[in-house]
C-alpha cells in the first residue's frame, strides 16, 4: 500500500505542477512584486527601475493624505450601496422565482442577461438613458411635471447611481445561488408549514432564512469583496467625475499609477486595499461563526 501512496504523491505533484507553475509565474510573483514595489521609491518615470528602499514612506504618505481617506470613504459608500442592493434583490428575486408562473424560464433569462455583458458597453447605454436634460428617463419625470435628478452628473448622486448599476450587473449570480439553495429545502418542511397554517413571513423567518444561511453568508462574502473592486464600473460610467465625487480607491490607484506615474504610491494603496478586504472577510467569517452556533 505504501508504494502506491508514494507513487500517488509524486503523480499528484505532477498533476498540480502546471497550474502551480503558471500561477507562481504570472499571478503570485506580481503580487509579491507589488508588495515590494510599495517599499521602493518608484514615483516618477525617471525612477522606474529604482531599487531605493524607502520602507514605509509611501504608506505614511498615503495614510496621511486627506485624499486617501476621502477615496476610501467613497469606496465604502459604493460598497455599502452595492452590497445592500445585490443581497436584497438577489434574495428577493431568488424567492420570487421559486414560484411557478407562466414563462418563468424566459423571465429568468431576462434577469440573468446583464451578468454576461460588460460595464463599458452597458455604460454607454446608461449614460444615454440617464442624461439629465435629454435622456428618456428624465423625460418620464417631465411628463409628470417634475425635474428628474441628475443621476450620473450629480456630484451627490453619481456614486450611488454607479453602485446600483454595477449591482444590477452582478445580480444574476446571487439570484441563481439563492434559487438553487431554495430548491434544496426539503419539501416536507413546506408541507409541515402548510399543515400548521403558517403565514408567509413566518415561513420566511423560520424555514427559508435558516436553511439559506450558509449560502447567504458565502454570497455576502463574495459580494462584499467584489464591491470594493469598483474600477471598471467607474471608468465605464463616470471616469471619476463629476469633480472627484466618484473617485473611489480603486480608481485612485489607477490614476496614481498611470496618470501621475506614481507606481510605488499606487502599489501601497493596492496593498492597503487588499488588507482592507482581508479584514472585512475575517470579520464576516467571525460573524458567521457566531451566528452559525445559534
Amino acid at each position: 500500500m505504501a508504494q502506491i501512496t508514494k507513487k500517488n504523491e509524486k503523480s499528484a505533484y505532477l498533476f498540480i505542477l502546471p497550474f502551480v507553475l503558471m500561477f507562481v509565474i504570472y499571478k503570485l510573483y506580481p503580487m509579491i512584486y507589488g508588495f515590494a514595489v510599495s517599499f521602493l521609491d518608484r514615483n516618477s518615470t525617471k525612477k522606474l527601475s529604482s531599487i531605493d528602499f524607502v520602507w514605509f514612506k509611501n504608506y505614511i504618505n498615503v495614510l496621511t493624505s486627506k485624499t486617501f481617506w476621502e477615496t476610501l470613504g467613497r469606496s465604502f459608500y459604493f460598497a455599502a450601496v452595492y452590497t445592500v442592493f445585490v443581497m436584497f434583490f438577489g434574495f428577493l428575486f431568488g424567492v420570487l422565482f421559486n414560484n411557478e408562473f407562466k414563462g418563468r424560464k424566459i423571465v429568468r433569462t431576462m434577469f440573468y442577461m446583464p451578468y454576461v455583458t460588460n460595464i463599458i458597453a452597458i455604460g454607454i447605454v446608461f449614460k444615454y438613458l440617464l442624461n439629465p436634460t435629454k435622456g428618456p428617463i428624465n423625460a418620464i419625470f417631465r411628463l409628470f411635471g417634475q425635474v428628474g435628478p441628475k443621476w450620473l452628473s450629480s456630484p451627490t448622486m453619481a456614486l450611488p447611481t454607479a453602485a446600483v448599476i454595477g449591482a444590477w450587473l452582478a445580480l444574476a449570480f446571487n439570484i441563481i445561488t439563492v434559487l438553487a439553495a431554495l430548491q434544496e429545502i426539503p419539501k416536507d418542511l413546506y408541507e409541515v408549514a402548510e399543515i400548521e397554517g403558517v403565514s408567509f413571513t413566518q415561513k420566511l423567518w423560520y424555514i427559508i432564512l435558516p436553511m439559506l444561511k450558509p449560502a447567504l453568508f458565502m454570497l455576502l462574502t463574495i459580494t462584499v469583496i467584489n464591491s470594493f473592486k469598483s474600477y471598471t464600473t467607474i471608468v465605464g460610467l463616470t471616469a471619476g467625475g463629476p469633480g472627484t465625487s466618484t473617485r473611489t480607491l480603486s480608481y485612485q490607484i489607477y490614476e496614481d499609477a498611470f496618470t501621475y506615474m506614481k507606481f510605488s504610491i499606487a502599489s501601497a494603496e493596492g496593498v492597503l486595499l487588499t488588507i482592507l478586504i482581508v479584514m472585512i472577510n475575517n470579520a464576516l467569517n467571525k460573524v458567521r461563526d457566531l451566528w452559525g452556533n445559534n
Partner: protein
Amino acid sequence: MKKALITLLLLTIAVATVFASGSKEAKQETRVVTTVCRASYVNEEWFNSMNAAFEAETGIHVDVQPTPGNDADHDAKLNIDLLAGSTIDVIPSLGPKFYYNRADAGYFVALDDLIASKGIDAKEVWGSYLPYSDDGHYYAVPYKQEVYCVFYNKNLFDRAGVPYPEGPWTWDEYVETAKKVTDLSAGIYGSYMNIENPWFILSAKQKNIPLYKEDGTCNFDAPEFRESIEWYKSLGNDLKIQMPVEEVVNENASWNYYAMAGDHLALFVQGNWFTRLLNSQTDYPKDWDYGVAPTPSAGEDGNNNFVSMGYYSINKNAEHPEEALEYLIWLGQNQWKFEGQIPALASLTAEEQNQVFSAIADASHGQVTVSDLYENFMNTGMGVAQSDIIGTAADEYNRIVNDEVAAYCMDLQDIDTTISKICSRVNEAIKNVQ
C-alpha cells in the same frame, strides 16, 4: 457535444490565426514610418491627404495608430504606451505641458545633430520656437503654434442686432457684448468657455501671475487667481451669459461640442486650431457663419494672449529612425498647410504669411478673410502668456485645479475652501515628487 465544441474551437483558432497573420505580410516591401494620433483625426480629410502627400513625395508609407477614447484619454494612453516601451516612431505632443513631461521622462531622441546631419539649419527654420530643455538640447520640432482668440456666431449677432465684436477689447466689454446677445428664452447663450485650465484662470494667466512661489510651493492663494475663478463662475451662475458648469458637464461632450452645437452659443474663447472644425462642412456641418475677434485683454498688465505649440518628437525606441527623421522634418515644415494652422517657422515670406491665412480663409468659404485672421490672430499687439501649467507636479496641479474649481462652480464648496484645498493638495503633490 464536447468533442464538437473542441473541434469548433480549434478550427476557429486556426482560421483566425491565418487571418491575423495575413495582414502583416503586405507591408514588408515599402518603407514605413509609424505615428500615433487622436482617434478623431483618422476620419478627417486633411490628415489623410497630408500623409498621402508625404508618401507621394518620399515613398514612405505612414502607418497611423489612433488611440482609443477622447483627447484626455489619448494623452493618458500615449503616456502609458511610451512607458511600456512603445516602438512608435514619431510622437506628437500637443501643448508644452505634455511635451516637457515626456521629454523629461527621457522618451525622446535629441535632435540637434540629427537635423544638422540632414543639412538643415534648425535655427534658421524654426528659430526660437525650438523647445530647448535644461540640458541645452531640443527633443522636438514644432509643427504649429496656436493662439487663442474669440470666435463668434455671426447669425446670432445678426439676430440680436448687435454689431460684430472687434478688438482690441477687454473682458468687461466681452461680457457686455455677450449680455446683449444672450437670449435665454430661445436657449441662446452669449458665451462659452471650456471647463478647465486656462479658462478658469484667464485673467490671472494673462497677467502672468506665477503658479509657483519662489520657494517652489503653490502660489494659488494669490488674489488674482481667486478673482479669475469668481469671475468665471459668475458668467454662468450670476450673469447668465454662459451655460452653468453643471449643465455643460451633463452634456458629457468634449472640445468639439460647439462645432456640433454652436448654433446656440454666440462667443467662444478657443484656440485658432478650431478653425479647422469650423471650416469643415463635411465633418461638422453647420448652418451659421463664424467670425473671429482677438482675445480680450485683462487690463493693461494683462494684455497678453495665450500661445501654445504642437510638437513632434522621435521615440528613443523608434523602429524606423531614418524614416522617422524624414517624416518629422517634413511635418515641421508642412503640416500647417494641410491642417490650416499657423506654422512655427522662424521666418515666413510675405507669400507664406498670406498662404497661412488664405488657406484658412478660403476653407471658410467667405466666413472670414485673410485680413480678419491676420489682424485677430497675429497682429493683436498683445504679448505672450503661457496657457499650460508647467513645473513640478504639473499634471497633478492641473488636475487638482480643474477638479476643485469645477466643484466650486457647481456650488459644492465656497471659494475659500476651494483655494485652500487647491493649495494644500498641490503642495502635497509637490512634496511627494521630491
